[in-house]
């Protein structure tokens, strides 16, 4: 009960932050600006162009959610330290593990609420526009996007214990973008090199987060069939395990951090 109250207080703090800093208003405006053009059946008078608009809209949704999730997570601990709110926080009878978990859960819930807003609007516009909407693929895309947010926020949280928020955003951003764009190429690249570069590339391939697994945009836009639910569930578990690993290291570091 005691721990639940502590977690609830920490989560509410992040939600107040989201609400009072007008982030929700900005996100809602963005969602409308990004997603409403999809409602045109034949944009620019070209039949079939709506799929391209869908693609651009979903790409922007991915980018906005990624930026919101990462910037919010990356600044949790550095901001607490810079503003000295860390002192009264740590002086309260809450363990550092609970504090970190509560702050992480808070930004995660805030980021996921933004994600749900985008996806809700996407589904609404598409169901209004066309009789057919691929619900199964949509739900899988949403689940995998949620998994992706869980993973990247945990990664940014871990980074925030090594770097300041700007450096953390750069490092995490490069890692995530690099893995989305070139993650699949690492084993191919490794095969072309000899030791020790080959070993380094293989280690990087297995250690870095496989962000490319979570992207279902193409299937959703082009109405391709859903992936097997078992695969979807395994990717979800992979994200949870990776996030738990990052959170575990972050907790270990935070418990030893001098403030």
């Amino acid at each position, binding site marked *: 009960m005691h721990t639940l109250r502590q977690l609830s207080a920490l989560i509410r703090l992040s939600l107040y932050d989201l609400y009072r800093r007008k982030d929700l208003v900005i996100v809602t405006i963005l969602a409308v600006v990004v997603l409403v053009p999809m409602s045109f059946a034949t944009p620019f008078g070209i039949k079939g162009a709506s799929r391209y608009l869908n693609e651009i809209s979903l790409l922007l949704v991915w980018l906005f959610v990624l930026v919101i999730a990462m910037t919010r997570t990356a600044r949790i601990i550095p901001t607490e330290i810079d503003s000295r709110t860390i002192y009264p926080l740590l002086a309260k009878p809450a363990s550092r593990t*609970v504090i970190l978990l509560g702050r992480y859960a808070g930004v995660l819930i805030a980021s996921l609420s933004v994600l749900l807003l985008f996806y809700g609007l996407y589904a609404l516009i598409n169901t209004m526009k066309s009789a057919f909407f691929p619900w199964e693929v949509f739900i899988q895309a949403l689940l995998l996007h949620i998994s992706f947010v869980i993973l990247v926020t945990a990664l940014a949280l871990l980074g925030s214990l090594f770097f300041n928020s700007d450096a953390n955003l750069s490092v995490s951003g490069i890692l995530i973008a690099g893995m989305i764009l070139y993650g699949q190429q690492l084993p191919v690249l490794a095969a072309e090199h000899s030791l020790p570069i080959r070993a380094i590339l293989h280690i990087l391939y297995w250690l870095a987060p496989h962000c490319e697994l979570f992207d279902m945009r193409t299937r959703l836009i082009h109405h391709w069939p859903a992936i097997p639910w078992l695969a979807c569930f395994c990717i979800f578990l992979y994200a949870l395990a990776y996030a738990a690993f990052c959170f575990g290291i972050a907790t270990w570091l935070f418990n030893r951090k001098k403030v």
Partner: protein
Amino acid sequence: MSSVITIDHVSKSYGTCNAVSDLTLSLHAGEILGFLGANGAGKTTTIKMLLGFFSPDSGQISLFGHNPSDASTRQRVGFMPETAYYYPYLNIRELLSFYGGLCGMSSSLIRQRSEDLIARTGLDHAKKRLLKTYSKGMLQRAGIAQALLHDPDLLILDEPFTGLDPLARIQLRDLILELKTKGKTILFSSHELSEAELMCDRVAIMKNGKLVLAKPVKEVVCDGNTNLERIFLNVLQAP
């Protein structure tokens, strides 16, 4: 008399700088201790160790006989930092609700204690305003309210009088003295020697990380021709 704070031969250094050297000090239940010293004397480092923010390099610290780094020990401790910029997007009620939740208090208890403390710290007129609109003195009052919220047995106040106007200063002094009558133990670090002289049972003066004087105020200023300020200057200027 039971010992609330026990600091036993504690040392702490940052690289080559000895922040605290072989400090031994204790504080008994119901006492008010003025923890004095110039800037960089080691007061804040000692307070941070008392709150379990980090451990000493050597020596032992205990609060109520327990390790201060245990979260349960801090249930009985209230802390007001020297300068805190509380979450600017909250109002005072939300701030106290947040800290109350961290202390594991129920919503009804938080509401009851918050209203009382908001009134007592003179923030009644500003309770709906966001903290980002508060002056420095008002933030200090918010800091006092959050430190007292869970009715702690031990209060650690780091420079509590900083930024307060004369009226607020008198109100805080009265509040501290009232807490003493309720049996609370209070340690405060300060540069305000006149306040320390008026309120404290004992003073401890730090210089370059070392404790150079720890005596009851009555003994320090027993001679009618002297005061704490003069003693403080003498101690600091001594080789």
